[in-house]
């Protein structure tokens, strides 16, 4: 279980997260809604260890995630598809993906199996497997980023706006895949502007505004909440 308690993050003088507390239960898909600049990415970066917290705790199955060491977090099952993708642009797509499985470097067979799986998920990547990741189209790079996070075979998957730049058909596929991954037992925390699609697969959700969680509820509750409908669903 992911337990976040009173998590705060500062960028210099500016506080991006104010005492955020939330849970993700095992096997859940939880969506994080919020406007631009609300602090979603900050939360995700903190949970994956890229960003240091200035207060509070976050634990995944009891393992503290706030040490500022992403390599530690991923080794403990927390993988992130980050905002900005953070790919290795001059390495081939396949090397990018294989490096995604770095924490399983002893288990080549498992990595190969996972590789086949992500290639079936994103068939577009197959013919690009030897191309430098940086030469791919924007959407294709987003696919690599998602696929790379799956390669770590995480128990908690952090997806920061995975649908960014993806064609509608692919968005559907991605969300379907997330659902499948989740059914295999992986917990997912998902930030999305495409709230409609995200809520479609989520069990629960939170709304973040200016670094504060302002709303939470089940899929149904959020879908029917007036503020959510007007601000995030555009209806």
């Amino acid at each position, binding site marked *: 279980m992911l337990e976040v308690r009173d998590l705060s993050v500062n960028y210099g003088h500016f506080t991006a997260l104010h005492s955020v507390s939330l849970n993700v239960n095992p096997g859940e898909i939880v969506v994080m809604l919020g*406007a*631009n*600049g609300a602090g979603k990415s900050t939360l995700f970066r903190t949970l994956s260890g890229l960003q240091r917290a200035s207060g509070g705790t976050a634990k995944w199955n009891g393992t503290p995630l706030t040490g500022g060491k992403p390599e530690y977090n991923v080794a403990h099952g927390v993988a992130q598809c980050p905002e900005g993708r953070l790919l290795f642009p001059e390495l081939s797509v396949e090397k990018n993906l294989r490096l995604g499985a770095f924490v399983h470097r002893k288990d080549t067979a498992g990595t190969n199996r996972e590789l086949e799986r992500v290639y079936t998920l994103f068939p*577009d990547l197959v013919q*690009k497997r030897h*191309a430098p990741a940086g*030469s*791919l*189209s*924007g*959407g*294709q790079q*987003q*696919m690599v980023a998602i696929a790379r996070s799956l390669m770590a075979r995480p128990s908690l998957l952090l997806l920061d*706006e995975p649908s*960014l*730049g*993806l*064609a*509608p*058909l*692919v*968005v*559907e596929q991605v969300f379907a895949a997330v659902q499948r991954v989740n059914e295999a037992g992986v917990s997912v925390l998902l930030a999305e*502007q*495409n*709230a*409609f*699609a995200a809520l*479609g697969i989520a069990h629960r959700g939170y709304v973040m505004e200016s670094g504060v969680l302002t709303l939470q509820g089940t899929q149904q509750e959020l879908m029917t909440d007036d503020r959510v409908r*007007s*601000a*995030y*669903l*555009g*209806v």
Partner: protein
Amino acid sequence: MLEVKGLGIRFGGNHAVQDVTASIEAGKITAIIGPNGAGKSTFFNLISGFYQPTSGSIHFLGQDITRLATHDVVARGIARTFQTTTIYRELSVLDNAMIGHRVRTRAGLWDALLRTGRERRDEQESRAGGMAALERVGLAAQAGLPAGALTQEGQKRVGIAMALSSDPKLLLLDEPAAGMNPEETVNLMGLIRELVGGGLSVALVEHKMSLVMGLADEILVMHHGQKIAEGTPAQVSRNPAVIEAYLGSHAHGGQMGQAGAGEASHA
């Protein structure tokens, strides 16, 4: 106003754009859609002179611009924004806009060193041109802020302002709504409509069907570097090839297509 004939480019063995013949009409909004890697951004890069095509021609307002350098293309009146927001984050919002106005000024090094009349005139015009562009995108109040301090959406507007201050006739927008929430997307649509109302022509690449269907007068569909369909939103969204390659369930008013925000603000 823009005609491309048999346009193509290859990277190594990969035909990113292949034999595309199409035109973009003046005063209209043309959307270009297609799967990831279809060649949409590359198509824009070819038009704006970023890449040199390996085949075909590009005519703008009757003139051949196929081999022109990017800055000359901008000077002829085609400005563009990038897929990922690229602006000068450390410069002020106004400076960003003024940089876009450079193509309309002629003051050079000597003018700078000698502070000639032209230099002073051009500087004033840049400022005025930059401010005008900021006003069009609604950023006049933020002119003095560093561009990096703005929200994602604000930064997108800065990018558009930069393009607008070059006083273009045709504006190319590459995924302007990426990363925007529905509310912001609606605002953006309003902005684009205003621009077109002011006489500008717009071509845009976008995966958000709410925006495309709500905004476009004309849609051009690309797949594997080729044009596979064109027409009005209604025509295109019924085209089986487009549905199969790109739209999937959204053609039938799926999750994104149905987000009728665009329609709502029509009223």
